[in-house]
C-alpha cells in the first residue's frame, strides 16, 4: 500500500472528525439554539448508540438472529437488565462481557 495513500487517509479522517466536533464551537458565541432543538438533542445519545449496537447484537453474522444461542443477544440482554435494575455502569459492562463469553464458550 502506498504510504501517501495511508497518510492522506489519516489526515482526511482527522480533518472531517475534528471539523464535525469543532465547527459549532468555532463561533460558539454566535450559536443560538432554538428551544425545540434543545429538546430534540436530549434524544441523540440513546438513538445514535442504539443504532450502532443493535445491528451488532441482532445480526452478528449479517443476518437476523434472535435465537437464544446468539451470545451477542444474551450478553446484551444481561447487560440491559442489570443496567436498568442496578444503575451501575461498571457492573453493567462486566456482567455483559461475562455472559457473552460464557455463552460463547458453552454454545
Amino acid at each position, binding site marked *: 500500500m502506498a504510504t501517501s495513500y495511508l497518510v492522506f487517509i489519516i489526515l482526511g*479522517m482527522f480533518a472531517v472528525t475534528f471539523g464535525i466536533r469543532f465547527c459549532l464551537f468555532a463561533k460558539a458565541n454566535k450559536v443560538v439554539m432554538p428551544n425545540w432543538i434543545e429538546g430534540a438533542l436530549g434524544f441523540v445519545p440513546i*438513538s*445514535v*448508540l442504539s443504532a*450502532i449496537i443493535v445491528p451488532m447484537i441482532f445480526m452478528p453474522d449479517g443476518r437476523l438472529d434472535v435465537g437464544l444461542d446468539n451470545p451477542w443477544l444474551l450478553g446484551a440482554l444481561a447487560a440491559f437488565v442489570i443496567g436498568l435494575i442496578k444503575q451501575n455502569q461498571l457492573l453493567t459492562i462486566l456482567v*455483559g462481557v461475562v455472559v457473552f463469553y460464557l455463552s460463547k464458550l458453552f454454545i
Partner: protein
Amino acid sequence: MEIQKLMKKGMVASIPMIVGGIPFGILFGSLAMSNGLSPWFAIAMSSLVFAGSAQFVALGLIFIDAPLWVIVSTTFIVNLRHILYAADMVKFIKHLPLKWRMLIGFGLIDESYAAVRPLYGNQQINVENGHYAFLGSFLSFYLMWQISTLIGVVAGELIPGMSEWGLEFAMVTTFIGIITPYLKSTQLKPVAPYWVALFGASFTSLVLNGLPNNLGLLFAALVGVTMGFLATKQTANSIVKEGV
C-alpha cells in the same frame, strides 16, 4: 472547587467506560496488524483521529482497497453524530477561549460526552468550572485509547486470530451502560419518550442495515430522535390536559 478535584471528578465518571474501551482499543490495534498495516499507522490514527467506531469502519474499507474519498466521506457520516453532542455542549463552553474550545472539540467522543454531560445536569459542575472535568475525562480516555491500541499492535503480532475473539462486544456493553440510565424513571423527567426513541432507532437500524456506508445508522438515529421528540410533545400535552 480546585482544578485537580474537578479533573478527578471527570476521570472518576469515566472509569466504567474506560474499562469497556480497553478491549476495543486492543482489538483495533490487532486488526490493523492482521490487515498488514504498519504499527505506526495504527498509532497515528488512534492519536490523531481518536474516534473508535470510525477507525474500525476505516480499517474495513482500507482492507477492500476503497478509494480515499470513500473512506473520508464514510468517516464523516459515522462521526456526524458528534455534531449533535457539540450542539448540546455549546451552552456550557461558549465563553471559553479558543484553545479550550479546540481541545474540547477534539475530545468530544461518545464516552466523554456521556460521562461529563450528566454532571452538568445534576449540578456537580457548572458553566464556570465544568471544562476541567471534561479535560480530566478526555485525558483519561485519550491515554487509555493510545495504550490499548499499542497493546493491540504488539499482541496482534504475537497472538494470531485475536481479532476473532469478539472483543468488540465490550463496545456493545459500554454503550448499553450509557443508554440504560435514560430509561429508568426519575422524578425529573418522563421516561416513556426515551423508550420510544430506543425502539424507533433500534428497529430502523435493523431494517436499514443493508444500506451502504453506514447510512442506515444515520437514518436510524434521525428516526429515534424525531420519535422521542414527538413523544415528549405528546406526554406534555396529556399532562396539560390532565391538569385542566
